[in-house]
């Protein structure tokens, strides 16, 4: 495919471009069915988990809502929603993005799409079984590990089919430079099974005492989000921003330094969630130190995306991909800084048992990861279906529903958490006796903020509906013709930078 004509040297660049286009078209054709299936399934789970999210939020300030239905009791809905958020929406969409970008970067067509689809089917079986178990009252109570062990075993078996494809793509890549995104994707593909399998085994075991299980649970909850999902999103950011802008990453050296510090420091995080808890202090301290050290790779990524965008920030008004990805990138920086601050004992003791820590996790998964993945999907899907997105208005509604909706929800959640923690730890010396700050006062403040959160989540839900509908149009090939300009919010003026 890379053989260039020797007879017509002056036409070399034209035929090289054509060959590149043909190669890309072949890669996209091989990826079309499996990746679209991954995205479709992920969007279905996104709608299901968002619905459960709204129900859970409603129940927190309106406990009588659907109270006679035992399957929807708050304590079952929340784990069901959390797991579908991570394994239904985030993992499947993330894997879809990973495989497509890897195929393009490695310049290899996706082999054996049938096995990928088989893996996807088995993954869904695991999810459905796990969700039914949790909703019927058989959850295990560990964050993002609530399904009975066999459900995660099913996920891991199907992952063996799916994830190994990514590694195969990497091993069969065309010789040449290995781009930074590839490193993040290969890392994520290898870290995920180790993380899930080991944590699942340890919390399943009756021989492990509760305190040790709690350590594993905290470590897993932190790393499934800050290692697995973050690595995918970072790989996508490093691919999409240079691609759309048409310029290279500001500092490649900084990027590779950032990858290795990310790989080394991330995994030590997690146990700071148990500050003050029934675990030896060194474990908590390790987490605090790791959270601070993690700011090093965060700083390198931030410097890179900011400086790469320098002078082209106005593209946020034109390109849907850039708008979503840049929003996600900024959320990455903010969420990591907040996470580092809450690792300190003085702050952590306020937030650890409040909705703040739950909200922070959701900030990582939605404001950072999901927004980057939306941006990636807006880029990838037209290349798979052969037409451009139909309506810029739909994209705007999706963005504003997500940004405003989740923005409102997260601000309310974080404020609720701070008030919860603050009141719970109120200092008697400040005139309030501890008994006076009784629990009902804490609950009243909480419910006020959570009402705001529910409204935000409903907005978010509406935004996702527009995206799901728009995606359906694309599946039905109801889009603008390909070859014209991609669907932009506003046309880019001629001569403008």
């Amino acid at each position, binding site marked *: 495919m890379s053989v260039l004509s020797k007879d017509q040297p002056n036409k070399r660049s034209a035929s090289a471009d054509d060959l590149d286009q043909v190669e890309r078209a072949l890669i996209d054709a091989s990826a079309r069915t499996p990746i679209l299936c991954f995205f479709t399934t992920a969007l279905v789970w996104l709608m299901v988990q968002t619905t459960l999210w709204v129900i859970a939020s409603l*129940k927190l300030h309106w*406990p009588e809502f659907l*109270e*006679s239905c*035992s399957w929807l*009791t*708050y*304590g*079952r809905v*929340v*784990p069901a929603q959390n797991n579908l958020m991570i394994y239904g929406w985030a993992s499947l969409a993330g894997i879809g993005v990973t495989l497509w970008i890897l195929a393009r970067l490695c310049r290899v067509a996706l082999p054996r799409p049938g096995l990928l689809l088989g893996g996807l089917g088995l993954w869904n079986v695991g999810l459905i079984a796990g969700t039914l178990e949790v909703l019927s009252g*058989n*959850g*295990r*109570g*560990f964050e993002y590990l609530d399904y009975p062990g066999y459900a995660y075993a099913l996920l891991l078996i199907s992952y063996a089919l799916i994830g190994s494809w990514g590694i195969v793509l*990497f091993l069969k890549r065309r010789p040449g430079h*290995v781009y930074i995104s590839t490193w993040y994707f*290969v890392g994520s593909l290898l870290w995920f099974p*180790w993380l899930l399998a080991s944590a699942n085994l*340890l*919390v399943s075991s009756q021989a*492990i*005492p*509760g*305190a*040790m299980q*709690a*350590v*594993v*649970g905290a*470590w897993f909850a932190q790393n499934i989000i800050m290692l697995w999902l973050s690595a995918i999103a970072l790989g996508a950011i490093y691919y999409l921003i240079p691609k759309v802008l048409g310029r290279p990453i500001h500092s490649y050296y900084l990027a590779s330094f950032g990858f*290795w510090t990310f*790989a080394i420091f991330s*995994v030590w995080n*997690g*146990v700071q969630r*148990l500050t*003050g*808890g*029934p*675990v*030896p202090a060194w474990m908590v301290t*390790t987490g605090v130190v790791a959270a601070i050290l993690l700011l090093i790779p965060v700083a390198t990524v931030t410097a890179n995306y900011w400086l790469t965008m320098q002078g082209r920030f106005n593209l946020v008004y034109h390109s849907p991909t850039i708008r979503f990805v840049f929003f996600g990138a900024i959320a990455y920086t903010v969420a990591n800084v907040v996470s580092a601050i809450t690792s300190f*004992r003085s702050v952590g*003791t306020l937030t650890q*048992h*409040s*909705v703040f820590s*739950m909200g922070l996790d959701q900030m990582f998964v939605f404001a950072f990861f999901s927004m980057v993945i939306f941006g990636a999907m807006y880029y990838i899907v037209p290349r798979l279906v052969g037409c451009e997105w139909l309506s810029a208005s739909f994209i705007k509604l999706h963005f504003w529903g997500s940004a405003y909706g989740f923005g409102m929800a997260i601000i309310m959640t974080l404020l609720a958490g701070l008030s*919860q923690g603050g009141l*719970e*730890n*109120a*200092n008697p010396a400040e005139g309030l006796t*501890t008994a006076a700050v009784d*629990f009902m006062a804490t*609950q009243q403040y*909480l*419910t006020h903020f959570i009402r705001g959160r529910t409204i935000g989540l409903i907005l978010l839900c509406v935004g996702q509906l527009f995206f799901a509908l728009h995606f359906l149009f694309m599946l039905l090939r109801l889009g603008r013709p390909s070859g014209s300009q991609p669907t932009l919010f506003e046309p880019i003026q001629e001569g403008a930078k």
Partner: protein
Amino acid sequence: MKPTPLLFAGIFASFAAAWLGLIVASDKQIGSLEAQVDAENETVYPLNVGGIVERGRRVYIGNGCNQCHTQFVRDADHGKDLARQWGTRRTVAIDYLYASGAELGLNRIGPDLANVGTDPEVNPGRAYLRDPKWLLVHLYNPRIHNPASIMPSYAFLFEKRKIQGQRSDSALPLEGRYSPAFGEEVVPTEDAKALVAYLLSLDRSHPVSESNGGQAAASKAK
């Protein structure tokens, strides 16, 4: 070195370092604890009760009680848990020897439950929690005791049935708009009874030795 092996080696090594240094090292320290045997008083702590308490534990975890309630008493340096009389001392690893890590809890939308079953003479706070009937009514509908509570109603753990002959001993004392229709009574199912038995088994007041994380003096309450 070629890029592929280097990349794989680096990805593997970075994860393995933390895996060994954090998880395996933690397991060495608290992964194989044993119950504390106090030869003088002839007590063993904790006791692996099993039976109805174990069933109650599964009901507690399966219904997600840990989403709103912790069992995680912190000392005075970390919070006001002891001042709130949620326990006589902080909880330590051995307290969860036969418990699941999930019971530590994720959130305090409701109060801490680590010492619900502690003798009121040992921990005077919240003595009303030691009454099984109070707990059952609370589970049936928390708004009976506290109209502003946001705790969900677990009425599905109870059964409304016609009174046959005499009222059952286990029927709940409900009044006003929460009482069932005339001739009916509300009785707890086995799951509800198990859950209450589990809650009443929660007692972390037993002193623990220095090596298990306890202090030489009884508590560090301020």
